[in-house]
């Protein structure tokens, strides 16, 4: 049984490893030196699942970044050097991110204080009072997480949806001062703010050259939209790979 490589040691990647380890050796690669991804390395479920996978023989290559996929070789690098890992297919569980300003159709200036949700979330863990009246743009997993984090931090916020009916425009030269919403009819309302947090939707992260497009050769993308529950996210990753295994059983339906 040949080794299979999973990129991503977050919940989805851990789920991949759970599904694959019963069928042969598994290597999990992640550029972050700990498991857990956006769920956090110290989440009890993450720690338990990681421990269990280690016991079952998963090889961890953490602090190692997947750079290029040229089937069946994955080129990775880390502080110790570089390596080519053979796998077929590659299981890419690189996680998701919120949409960028351009993806949301947001226009205007680019002053200080317009920040991706993932970044805002990290900054809020410092427990500093960073903003007085941020606007959370969008809905979805990151919007929910940000609202939670801001509430925990005692920071009042407003939330604005991204909708085709409203053009969002950022105003402010040195730092953001307001977010304007202009309806198709032309009426405009303006929300004063000191930060705009881009938190809409969930877009799969794709950064390994050769494994960018959905149509990339011999890659199984395991990037379900993250739910709020870590167990669900691990299960979602496991389910995708289990289904793939079933469809690609030797002598099976594929």
């Amino acid at each position, binding site marked *: 049984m040949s080794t299979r490589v999973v990129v991503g040691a977050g919940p989805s990647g851990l789920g991949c490893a759970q599904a694959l380890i019963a069928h042969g050796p598994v290597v999990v690669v992640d*550029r972050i030196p700990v498991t857990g991804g956006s769920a956090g390395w110290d989440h009890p479920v993450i720690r338990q699942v990681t421990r269990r996978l280690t016991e079952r023989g998963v090889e961890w290559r953490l*602090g190692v*970044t997947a*750079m290029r996929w040229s089937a069946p070789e994955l080129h990775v*690098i*880390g*502080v*110790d*050097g*570089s390596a080519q890992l053979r796998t077929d297919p590659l299981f890419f569980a690189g996680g998701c*991110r*919120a949409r*960028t*300003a*351009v993806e949301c*159709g947001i*226009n*205007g*200036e*680019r*002053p*200080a*204080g317009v*920040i*991706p*949700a*993932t*970044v805002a979330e*990290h*900054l809020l863990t*410092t427990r*500093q*009072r*960073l*903003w*007085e009246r941020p606007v959370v743009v969008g809905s979805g997993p990151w919007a929910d997480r940000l609202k939670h984090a801001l509430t925990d931090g005692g920071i009042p916020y407003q939330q604005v949806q991204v909708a085709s009916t409203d*053009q969002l*425009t950022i105003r402010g*030269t*040195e*730092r953001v001062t307001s977010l304007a919403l202009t309806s198709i009819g032309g009426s405009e309302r303006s929300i004063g703010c*000191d*930060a705009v947090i881009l938190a809409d939707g969930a877009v799969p*992260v*794709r*950064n390994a050259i050769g494994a*960018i*497009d959905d149509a990339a050769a011999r890659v199984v993308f395991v990037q379900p939209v993250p739910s709020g529950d870590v167990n669900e996210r691990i299960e979602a990753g496991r389910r995708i790979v289990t289904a793939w295994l079933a469809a690609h059983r030797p002598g099976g339906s594929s």
Partner: protein
Amino acid sequence: MGATGEFDVVVVGAGVLGCAVAARLSATTARVCVIEAERDVAEHASKGNAGIAVSYYGPPGIQQTELINASWPHWEDLTGRLQVPYRRIGAVMVATDDVQAERLEHTRDEIHACGVRAEMLDGADARRLEPLITPHCVAAISMPDEGVIDPMRLTVAYARLAAHNGVAFRFGERVTRIDHDDDGRTSIATHVGTRLRARFVVNAAGVATGVISELAGGETLHCWPRKGQYVVLDRSFGERLSKIVFSTHLPDTKGSNVVPTTHGSVLLGPTATDHDDADDRTTDTATITEIRRLAALLVPATADAPAIRAFAANRPAGDEAHRLRVDTIVPNLVHVTDRSAGVSLSPAAAERVWELLRGAGLDAREWADAAATLPRVAMLRTAADPRPLIAADPRYGQVVCVCEQVSAAEIDAALSSPIPAVSVDGVRKRCGAMYGRCQGALCMAGISFMTALHTGTGPSDVLHTSRGSLGSGR
């Protein structure tokens, strides 16, 4: 109480032209100080352009063309010495109807009259050269000497070389007074109380050229911002495009272009809108849509390529599109401005300013021991083999910006080299981190932390852009 100092030359403005002048003068015995209103170099037109190092821009016989001609053959040498990404990939100017095709004949003749290579092609040959060119191309000009360059890294490199050779830089200082003293020197004061005296002043202030000239009692120079909006396409599309694609130059406009960048992305644009607010760098949906529509006329495949960013920058437009001369009223004031080709003519413009200053009485000579090269900062993304880089410095194995494959070693260099980044955006300008498709979603937290460490700030007051912090407290 601000700083004081006596200099031979004060350069106002640290855009590509001001920094090129500073670099050139740093190889002489002149004592030079650069004053810049923003907190970093390349904060205006010099960071917001298409990154083309042209071989041709306008008709023969004008100074702008002479300076472009004196610059374009030397880019490989200069960028090699300064460690600036540059590729002479060539351009194709495309005509999609007979009116444009006839116009191309004139353009081709003009390019030849400038002494630059250009060859007429039919549509089929154009598409052999660049397969993504529209099937509606009826004629084209091949311009093999056009190249693409990283204008931000070029400006930083000029500044670094200047600083290495002893040029002083003052950032975040706006010139508020210029007085001519009885001893022939000129006093320059800034808004934080700095008072410098210089024998000569070089006005490289871009859109603020008119303001500086007025403060100095020089000519009334009409200058205004000309906004250009741009759209950046993902590098997955950039891999497929090998040539710069120009639209036919028409009498009133140079049109909108499709430009592979040294990052691997593709730039669409620019537009050109004269207005009156130099701080207005807003993008709008209607213009972005139009940019994409025009681009698709040249390269249809751009229509399906994902955009990762849109931005705008103001070019220094004025009653003169190009100005490099001694002021006619104030004999120790030299103006250097170019509306569109600043990057392209920066090497020769710097040389010309040095000549003008000497002609005006600057008592300085060449300094043979000046450095002419910068130390190499290797890029992980373009390294043929990363192993020796990582063996020499393990931080090359720590990929911080995964979209653009920028390592911790390069980010640290951006924060600790001379003319260091002082903001998160400054890191982006120097090493390309956060430039890619996730626009910092994965790496900006780590980079803001590294920036805070280097600048002695915290999560709240670390500078996000050169003008504002991440937190709103400052």
